């Protein structure tokens, strides 16, 4: 059984890791760099990720390119929840890793998307160069190739949003009780 699953894993992972379709999601300056990566000079198509999907239902990967503010956060979590499993996240840019230059005293910026959704690859830089984004995609592919179908349940459990959607008339995300929020910073 184990052998059959490993063989299956190999084929399954090879296939999906070579066609990771990202969601079109760019919230500020890092987005320009992401667009540049998909253009002819850097050509993300070499790694099978050229199809930027406008709908989360067809995407495997969300590259959070840009600052996430409190107003945007519910939209991001909703998009993430609408993506089908298995789904992956690349946190692109200092803003989405820790809050970046807004980390100290901004009133509106979320200090890192890992407080909202689980992140697979952290990509620091302000903004990261297109080569760095390509490297992040390659790292993600490597990660995908190590996964096995046997761990599916664990994976799905670990890949839940870490906050609750707002209730009633509110527009602010609420903390989730069960999952501990990652705290960076000094």
């Amino acid at each position, binding site marked *: 059984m184990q052998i059959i699953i490993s063989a299956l894993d190999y084929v399954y992972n090879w296939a999906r890791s070579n066609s990771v379709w990202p969601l079109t999601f760019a919230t500020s300056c890092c987005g320009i760099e992401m667009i540049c990566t998909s253009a002819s000079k850097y050509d993300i198509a070499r790694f099978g990720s050229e199809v930027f999907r406008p709908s989360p239902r067809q995407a495997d990967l969300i590259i959070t390119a840009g600052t996430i503010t409190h107003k945007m956060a519910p939209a991001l979590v909703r998009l993430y929840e609408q993506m089908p499993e298995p789904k992956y996240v690349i946190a692109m840019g200092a803003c989405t890793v820790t809050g970046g230059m807004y980390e100290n005293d901004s009133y509106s910026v979320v200090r890192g998307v890992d407080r909202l959704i689980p992140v697979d690859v952290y990509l620091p830089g302000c903004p990261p160069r297109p080569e760095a984004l390509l490297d992040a995609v390659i790292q993600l592919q490597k990660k995908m190739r190590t996964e096995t179908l046997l761990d599916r349940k664990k994976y799905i459990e670990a890949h839940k949003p870490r906050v609750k959607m707002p209730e009633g008339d*509110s527009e602010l*995300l*609420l903390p989730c009780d069960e999952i501990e929020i990652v705290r960076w910073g000094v």
Partner: protein
Amino acid sequence: MSFYEFLNNHGIDYSQEQEASGGVVLSIKKEDLLACCEILKTDRLFNYDMLLSVTGMDCRTHFEILYDLYSTRSHSRLSLKIKTDRVNPNVESLYSLYSSADWHERECFDLLGIEFVNHPNLERILLPKDWIGHPLRKDYNQEDERLCWNKR
């Protein structure tokens, strides 16, 4: 007729004038704002028919609001500055004269909490609806329990 003569003729009470690179800055009384803008807008010669921006400032003892006007006829700029109290700050809305005042005034209300009297839809524009406080005030502290997950 020079601009200052024009102002004097119409009895506009400007207490301080200052030539900035982009044009003239006038300090006027809060109560005169609407009447003053109406004169400036309807005058054939000066015709300040466009409101470029409304900017609020917290000066600790009071708030200042800066209105940038532009004339598409003479291509000149004019800034009007008014002061308002820190407790219960309010000023007449310019929406009836310039429709571009709508969002600018909403932004000013959102971030500084200045009330624009007779504004048709004075709601928050940039921050979430149920945000507490006005973050560009100097004494603002974020003490919202719901945002505890975002502490650094």
